[in-house]
C-alpha cells in the first residue's frame, strides 16, 4: 500500500483513491459537503481543502481539494497548517451568509451534516449582518418537504436525483447566489427514490414530510435494526420510534444490498404501523356478525374448543416472518399447512427455488449486480417489483463509461469527468417485457412481448447461446451482446406470474455460464418473505385451492397475517364466507379476511416484533422490535405458541423464547441449519452489556408520560433479543445486524456511517450480512421444455398482464396515508393503437369483462404494450377479481366519470378559472 505524509504522519492509503477518502479511512476528520461515497467527487463545495507540498523543499505548499486529489506514494499534505484551516473556515462562513439561523426549529437539527462541519472547522461567530436570500419553497408531494433557504448549493441533491437515480423532473435553476433546487413547477416528485434526498441533503432543504408532522429529534428516537417489508429485496432499515409511534425510517447501511439508498415505498410505506385500523385487542364474532373485543385469556379459552381433536389447517403468509410460518407448519403438521401464496404465485415460487438451487450462474447481491456489463431483463418490471435493484441496474449501465474512463486514466470517483467523457454511452441493457418500464430510458434494446413470447424468446436465446442454428435476428443480436460481455446478468422474476419465463431465464443463464464463468442470474420475488414461505413448502403443502376444496372437512382454519381476498378468486371467498369453519385470523391491520374470521388476534407489526425474512437471493436477515407492542398485541410467533399450547398435542409449549423457535427451526431441516447464525441471540453482550436502542442523549424519558402520570414507569425489559430499551451500552463495533442507528462523536448525521465502515464505502467493520440459505448444485436447470401455447386470440380478446405499481400494489404500505395518496386509481393499461381502436383516451373508463369479473377501470395509455395484451394494476382493491394471463374483452364505459386531476394548494386559482365543467 502506498503511503502519504499528512501533517508529518505517514498514513497508508489505497491505490487510486482520493485524499479525502484516505483521510477518512485514517480516522482524520476532514470536512466535506459535495462528495458522497456512492456518488464520488465534483469538487464544487471547496470544503475539503488541504495544503499539498510539491517537494521536500516546498514549505508554502498550495491549497488543493482533498476529494479531487489522487493520492500518490510519498505525497505530502497538511490539514492543520494555518492556510488550510483558515480556508475551510472561510468556506463555512460564506455558506453561512445565506443559511438561516433556524436550527432550533429545523427538522435536520441534531443530525445535520452542516452543523457537524461548522463545529468541526470551529466557525462560531457570524460576522455578516446583512439581509439573507430568501426563496419560495415548492410543494413536492406528500413525502418531501422543501425549505430552500437552508441550501448551501453543494449540488448533491441534483447529482443524486438526476445522475444517480435517473430522475428528470428536478434540477438546479438560476446561478450565483440565486441557485435554486427544485422542480420547474410545484408538484409531486416523480422519482421513486425521491426520499433519499432527505439523507443526501447535508442540511434541512429536503426533509421527511410525514416525520415532520410528528417530529422528534434524532437523539430522542428509539431505533432498532430492521429489514424493509416492502418487497423481496430485503433492504436494511433503521426505523425510529417515540411515544409509541413509528416516526420515520432511515436507510441502514448494508454493503451487499441497499448501500446508502432505499426506495420511497421502503422509507415512507411503514406508516400503517400507526394506522387507527390496527388491531388492538382480540375480537370474537357475535351471532349478528359484529365483533366484540375480548381479553386474550378468554379468546384463548374459546380457541381451545376449536382446536382440540379437530382438523385444523393453517394458512401461512409471504409477509409473515419465517419463524411464524414455521411454527404454524410445525404445530399443525406439513399436511395441514398451506404457504398462503396464491395459486398463481405458488408454482412460480416453486420453480424459482428450483432454478436457484440448480443454476450454473452466480446469484449476485445487489452490490454485485452493479458490476454487470450487459444486462438482460426477462419479463420483470424491476423498477416496480424490486425498486432497489433497478437503482443498481442504473449504475451498472455506467460500466461502459467507467471502462472509457479507465482507458483515459480518469479515476472512477471523478464523477463530473467520467460523466462528461461517457455522455450517453451506456453498457447494453436489453429489456424484454410486456409493457413499458421506468428503465426504458437507459435501455439499449426494448422488446414488447406477451409473457408466452418472452419465454419463447428466452428458450431460443438459450439455444442460440448453446450454438444452435437460429436465424431470428432479435435472438442472434441479443446472443451476440451477451456472449461478448465479461459479466453478463440475467434478471427475471415472479412479476409476470409465469413459471415458463423463469425456466427460460434459467436456461439463458446456464447457457451463458457455459460460455462465461462470471455470468449472473437474479430473480425477483414479490413480497418480503415470499422466498421464506416457499422454502418452507414441501410436497405435502396444500395449495390455497385445495384448502378451499377441503373446506367442508376442516373444523378450524388458522390464517397467519394473510388477507386472502388478495389471493383467492371471488367464488372461493364466497365459499369461505358461507362455510361453517371456525377461522382464527392473526393480523396487524383491519382487512377483509379479518371480517370473515370467527376470531381475530392482534399481531405485532415488523416494528414491534422480531423475525427473519428471506430475500430474493435466499438471504435470511433478522429484524428486531423497535418498541414494545402496545395493548394486547403480540408477535405472531408468540400467539402461535399460545394457541399450540392449548392443543392436546402440546409439542410447542416447551418453547420459552424467540431463540428457542429459531433453534427448533434450525433443527427441523438441513436447509435451515444456518438460521441460528443470522443474528446473535438474546444472550449476546457487547463488553458485558446489551446494545442500546436509545442514543446516549435520549431526553425526557421519565417525563414522557407526565401528562398521564408523574410516576416514572419502568423501562420495558427485552427478554427476546440482545437489544435493550435503554441508553446504556455501546453502539460501536457490534455485529452490523445489531446496529440500531449510526452516531459517532462529532458526526451526528448519517454521515457517521463511515465510522462504522472498514473503509470508505466498504463493508461494515463487523459485517454480518445475513446468511444465504440456498446454494446451487451448479448442475444446471436442464429441464426439457414442453408447454402449451394459447392460440391466437379472437377479435377484442386480450390477455391480462399484471402491472406492479411501486405505490399501491403492495398490501401493507397502501394502508399508509401518504402512499395511498400517491397510489392513484386502479387502471387498465393499453397501447395507443388499442386506445384508438376502442375509442378511448387516457383517463376514460373501460369495462373489463372476463371470467367472473365485470368491472370498469380507468384507462392509462402507455408507450408500449405487447401485441394482444392489456395491463392491469395489481394489488388494488378494484382489480382483485382479475388474474394474470386471463382473457378479457374490453368495451368503452360510456357512463365513466373522469376523475379530476390532482390539485395542489397553489392550483386553487387555476381550478377556479378552468371551471368545473371541463372535467365532467
Amino acid at each position: 500500500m502506498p503511503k502519504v505524509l499528512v501533517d508529518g504522519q505517514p498514513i497508508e492509503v489505497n491505490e487510486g483513491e482520493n485524499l479525502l477518502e484516505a483521510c477518512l479511512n485514517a480516522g482524520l476528520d476532514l470536512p466535506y459537503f459535495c462528495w458522497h461515497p456512492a456518488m464520488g467527487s465534483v469538487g464544487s463545495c471547496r470544503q475539503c481543502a488541504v495544503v499539498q507540498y510539491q517537494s521536500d523543499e516546498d514549505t508554502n505548499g498550495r491549497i488543493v481539494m482533498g476529494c479531487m486529489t489522487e493520492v500518490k506514494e510519498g505525497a505530502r499534505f497538511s490539514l492543520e497548517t494555518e492556510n488550510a484551516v483558515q480556508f475551510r473556515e472561510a468556506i463555512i462562513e460564506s455558506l453561512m451568509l445565506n443559511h438561516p439561523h433556524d436550527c432550533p426549529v429545523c427538522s435536520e437539527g441534531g443530525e445535520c451534516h452542516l452543523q457537524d462541519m461548522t463545529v468541526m472547522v470551529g466557525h462560531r461567530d457570524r460576522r455578516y449582518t446583512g439581509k439573507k436570500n430568501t426563496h419560495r419553497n415548492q410543494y413536492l408531494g406528500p413525502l418531501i418537504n422543501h425549505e430552500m433557504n437552508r441550501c448551501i448549493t453543494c449540488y448533491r441533491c441534483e447529482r443524486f436525483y438526476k445522475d444517480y437515480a435517473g430522475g428528470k423532473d428536478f434540477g438546479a435553476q438560476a446561478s450565483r447566489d440565486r441557485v435554486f433546487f427544485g422542480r420547474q413547477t410545484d408538484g409531486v416528485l416523480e422519482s421513486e427514490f425521491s426520499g433519499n434526498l432527505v439523507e443526501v441533503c447535508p442540511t434541512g432543504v429536503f426533509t421527511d414530510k410525514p416525520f415532520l408532522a410528528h417530529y422528534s429529534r434524532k437523539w430522542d428516537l428509539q431505533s432498532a435494526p430492521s429489514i424493509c417489508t416492502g418487497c423481496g429485496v430485503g433492504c436494511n432499515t433503521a426505523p425510529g420510534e417515540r411515544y409509541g409511534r413509528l416516526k420515520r425510517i432511515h436507510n441502514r447501511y448494508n454493503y451487499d444490498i441497499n448501500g446508502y439508498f432505499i426506495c420511497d415505498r421502503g422509507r415512507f410505506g411503514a406508516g400503517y404501523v400507526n394506522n387507527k385500523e390496527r388491531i388492538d385487542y382480540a375480537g370474537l364474532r357475535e351471532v349478528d356478525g359484529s365483533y366484540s373485543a375480548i381479553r386474550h385469556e378468554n379468546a384463548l379459552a374459546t380457541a381451545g374448543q376449536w382446536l382440540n381433536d379437530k382438523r385444523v389447517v393453517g394458512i401461512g403468509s409471504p409477509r409473515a416472518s419465517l419463524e411464524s410460518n414455521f411454527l404454524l407448519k410445525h404445530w399443525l403438521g406439513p399436511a395441514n399447512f398451506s404457504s398462503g401464496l396464491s395459486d398463481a404465485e405458488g408454482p412460480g415460487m416453486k420453480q424459482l427455488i428450483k432454478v436457484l438451487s440448480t443454476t450454473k450462474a452466480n446469484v449476485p447481491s445487489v452490490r454485485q449486480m452493479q458490476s454487470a456489463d450487459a444486462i438482460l431483463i426477462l419479463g420483470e418490471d424491476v423498477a416496480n417489483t424490486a425498486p432497489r435493484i433497478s437503482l443498481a441496474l442504473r449504475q451498472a449501465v455506467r460500466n461502459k463509461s467507467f471502462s472509457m474512463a479507465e482507458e483515459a486514466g480518469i479515476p472512477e470517483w471523478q464523477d463530473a469527468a467520467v460523466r462528461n467523457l461517457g455522455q450517453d454511452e451506456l453498457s447494453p441493457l436489453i429489456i424484454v417485457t410486456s409493457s413499458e418500464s421506468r428503465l426504458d430510458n437507459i435501455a439499449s434494446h426494448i422488446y414488447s412481448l406477451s409473457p408466452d413470447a418472452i419465454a419463447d424468446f428466452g428458450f431460443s436465446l438459450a439455444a442460440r447461446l448453446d450454438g444452435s442454428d437460429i436465424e431470428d435476428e432479435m435472438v442472434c443480436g441479443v446472443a451476440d451482446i451477451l456472449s461478448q460481455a465479461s459479466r453478463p446478468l440475467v434478471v427475471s422474476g415472479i412479476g409476470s406470474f409465469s413459471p415458463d419465463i423463469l425456466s427460460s431465464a434459467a436456461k439463458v443463464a446456464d447457457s451463458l455460464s457455459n460460455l462465461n464463468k462470471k455470468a449472473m442470474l437474479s430473480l425477483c420475488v414479490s413480497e418480503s418473505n415470499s422466498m421464506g414461505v416457499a422454502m418452507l413448502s414441501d410436497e405435502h403443502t396444500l395449495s390455497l385451492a385445495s384448502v378451499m376444496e377441503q373446506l367442508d372437512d376442516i373444523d378450524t382454519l388458522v390464517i397467519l397475517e394473510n388477507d386472502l381476498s388478495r389471493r383467492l378468486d371471488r367464488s372461493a371467498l364466497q365459499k369461505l364466507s358461507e362455510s361453517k369453519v371456525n377461522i382464527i385470523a392473526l393480523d396487524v391491520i383491519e382487512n377483509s379476511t379479518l371480517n370473515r374470521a370467527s376470531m381475530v388476534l392482534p399481531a405485532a407489526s415488523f416494528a414491534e416484533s422480531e423475525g427473519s425474512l428471506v430475500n430474493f437471493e435466499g438471504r435470511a436477515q433478522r429484524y428486531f422490535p423497535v418498541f414494545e407492542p402496545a395493548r394486547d398485541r403480540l408477535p405472531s410467533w408468540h400467539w402461535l405458541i399460545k394457541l399450540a399450547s392449548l392443543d392436546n398435542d402440546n409439542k410447542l409449549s416447551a418453547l420459552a423464547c424467540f431463540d428457542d423457535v429459531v433453534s427448533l427451526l434450525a433443527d427441523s431441516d438441513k436447509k435451515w441449519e444456518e438460521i441460528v447464525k443470522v443474528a446473535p441471540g438474546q444472550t449476546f453482550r457487547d463488553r458485558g452489556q446489551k446494545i442500546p436502542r436509545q442514543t446516549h442523549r435520549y431526553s425526557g424519558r421519565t417525563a414522557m408520560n407526565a401528562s398521564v402520570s408523574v410516576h416514572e414507569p419502568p423501562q420495558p425489559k427485552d427478554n427476546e433479543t440482545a437489544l435493550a430499551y435503554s441508553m446504556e451500552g455501546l453502539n460501536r463495533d457490534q455485529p452490523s445486524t445489531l446496529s440500531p442507528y449510526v452516531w459517532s462523536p462529532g458526526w451526528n448525521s448519517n454521515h457517521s456511517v463511515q465510522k462504522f465502515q472498514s473503509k470508505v464505502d466498504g463493508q461494515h467493520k463487523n459485517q454480518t450480512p445475513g446468511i444465504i440459505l440456498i446454494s446451487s448444485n451448479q448442475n444446471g436447470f436442464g429441464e426439457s421444455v414442453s408447454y402449451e401455447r394459447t392460440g391466437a386470440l379472437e377479435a377484442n380478446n386480450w390477455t391480462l398482464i399484471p402491472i406492479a405499481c411501486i405505490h399501491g400494489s403492495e398490501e401493507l404500505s397502501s394502508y399508509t396515508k401518504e402512499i395511498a395518496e400517491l397510489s392513484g386509481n386502479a387502471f387498465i393499461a393499453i397501447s395507443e393503437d388499442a386506445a384508438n381502436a376502442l375509442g378511448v383516451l387516457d383517463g376514460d373508463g373501460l369495462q373489463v369483462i372476463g371470467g367472473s369479473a365485470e368491472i370498469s377501470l380507468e384507462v392509462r395509455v402507455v408507450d408500449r404494450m405487447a401485441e394482444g395484451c392489456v395491463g392491469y394494476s395489481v394489488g388494488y382493491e378494484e382489480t382483485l377479481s382479475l388474474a394474470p394471463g386471463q382473457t378479457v374483452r374490453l368495451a368503452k364505459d360510456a357512463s365513466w366519470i373522469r376523475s379530476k386531476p390532482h390539485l395542489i394548494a397553489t392550483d386553487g386559482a387555476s381550478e377556479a378559472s378552468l371551471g368545473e365543467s371541463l372535467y365532467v
Partner: protein
Amino acid sequence: MMEALIQTDLASVLTNEETAAIDAELEHVPYKSGAAIDALKIVQSKRGWISDECLTAISKHLEMSVDELEGIATFYNLIYRKPVGEKVILFCDSVSCWICGCEDAKEKVSKVLNIGYGETTADNKYTLLPVPCLGACDRAPVMMVGDELITNLDDAKIEATFSQSLLSEDY
C-alpha cells in the same frame, strides 16, 4: 379531452419559422439537448422573452424535461423568463464604467425613463438591466439599447437617445 386540448396547444406554441430555425441548429449538435441555448435564443429573438408555454414547447421539441430546460434558461442572464420591453437596455456597471462615472449616467437614465434596474417603462418600450461588461471599456461608460451600443455616456447623449420617448406623454 383536457390532455388532448393541452397537447394541441403546446404543439402550436412554436411557429413554423421558429421550429425551422431550431431544426437548423439541431443539424450541428450531436445531442438534441445541445441546441437548448440556441433554441431559447431563437424563440426569444421573435418574442422578446421565454414564457412557460414556450419553455414547455421547446423542451418537448428537444426531447428533454422542462425542468432541465428551466435550469438552462434561468442560468443565463440574457434569457428572459419574464416579459421585457421592446428594447432591453444593458447598462454596464463594471470597473471601467464605474471609474468613468457610470453611476451618474445610470441615475440619468432612471430619471429620464422613470425606471430602476429590472423595471420596464409604462409604455413597454424599455427594460433596464445591469450588465458586468460590454467589452467597450475604452469608451466607458457604455450601455446597449437593443442592438445598439452607445458609448461615452453623458446627460446629453442619454437625453438624445431617449428623446423620442421623452416627447411622448407617458414620461
